[in-house]
């Protein structure tokens, strides 16, 4: 019975996939609207020289604001699940005489400053090449995960005030920049950066986003890598 059900699901999914491929091939050629040309035409007024960053942070900045809020909500969901956990300090279980663990510790100590440097570079270069805040934040999160897996950084439990401040800092900077722009430069229009200062504003917002996103994405792993207590296990 279960095999029949599985076979039916596979057949239906394959049919859906084939129908989608056929429909896409049958679509009429795209209409007159050519988005890349339109973005490139407005690129000078956006403050950056990379079209993807201009779209993400300037033309569709509202979507990026909501996306940061969604990520923060995801982390709040994770925080609601953990209860009270013990800190799992991986280093306590290591015996430093084992050679491959020494290599891991050495590698973590060498790589993490380099990763912070790469994150800073990705943040800066996002203005004129592929890069930007999300990529830099992801590299910072990977550095945090590497530190945790090699035992240097213990897992996070209940966040202290400085961790909480870091988690919401990006969103607050974004909201403050939006409020300042709306109050001073373009009243009544949300996230309409004045072209002379758009580049500086985008860099400021991206810096805050990098810090927050690094902490949020690292928190998605670090809050969950502690040992669950007995009450957690019984739930």
């Amino acid at each position, binding site marked *: 019975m279960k095999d029949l059900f599985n076979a039916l699901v596979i057949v239906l999914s394959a049919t859906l996939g084939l129908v989608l491929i056929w429909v896409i091939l049958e679509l009429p050629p795209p209409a007159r609207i050519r988005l890349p040309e339109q973005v490139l035409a407005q690129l000078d007024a956006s403050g950056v020289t990379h079209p993807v960053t201009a779209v993400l942070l300037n033309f569709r900045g509202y979507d990026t604001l909501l996306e940061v809020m969604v990520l923060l909500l995801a982390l709040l969901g994770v925080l609601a699940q953990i209860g009270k956990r013990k800190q799992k300090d991986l280093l306590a279980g290591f015996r430093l005489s084992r050679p491959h663990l020494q290599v891991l510790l050495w590698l973590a100590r060498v790589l993490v400053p380099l990763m912070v440097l790469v994150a800073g570079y990705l943040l800066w270069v996002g203005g004129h090449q592929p890069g930007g805040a999300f990529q830099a934040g992801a590299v910072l999160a990977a550095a945090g995960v590497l530190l945790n897996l090699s035992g240097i950084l213990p897992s996070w439990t209940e966040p202290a005030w400085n961790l909480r401040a870091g988690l919401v800092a990006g969103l607050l900077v974004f909201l403050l920049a939006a409020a300042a722009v709306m109050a001073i430069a373009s009243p009544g229009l949300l996230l309409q950066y004045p072209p002379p200062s758009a580049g500086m504003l985008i860099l400021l917002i991206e810096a805050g986003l990098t810090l927050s996103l690094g902490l949020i*994405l690292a928190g998605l792993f670090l809050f969950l890598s502690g040992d669950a207590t007995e009450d957690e296990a019984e739930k």
Partner: protein
Amino acid sequence: MSSLILDLLLAIALLWSALRSLMAPDLFHAVVLFIVFGLLMALAWSRLHAPDIALAEAAIGAGLTGALLLDTVGYLRKKQRESLL
């Protein structure tokens, strides 16, 4: 011509790793194949001339999600061992 062969091989590898990841009986194999799928997806994004998405996919899709899934597999195995004792 060679880029067409590369794209075709990439597409076949994507579908194959996804299929094997779903059909693997061992959870650890499935998670490793998921990470492989994430990296191949990052390659596919670069072939589509979208390097920003490729960076984000490699870091978040393959890296962070893969690490979280591996953590889950370890936790499940620990629970399994404790329940057998």
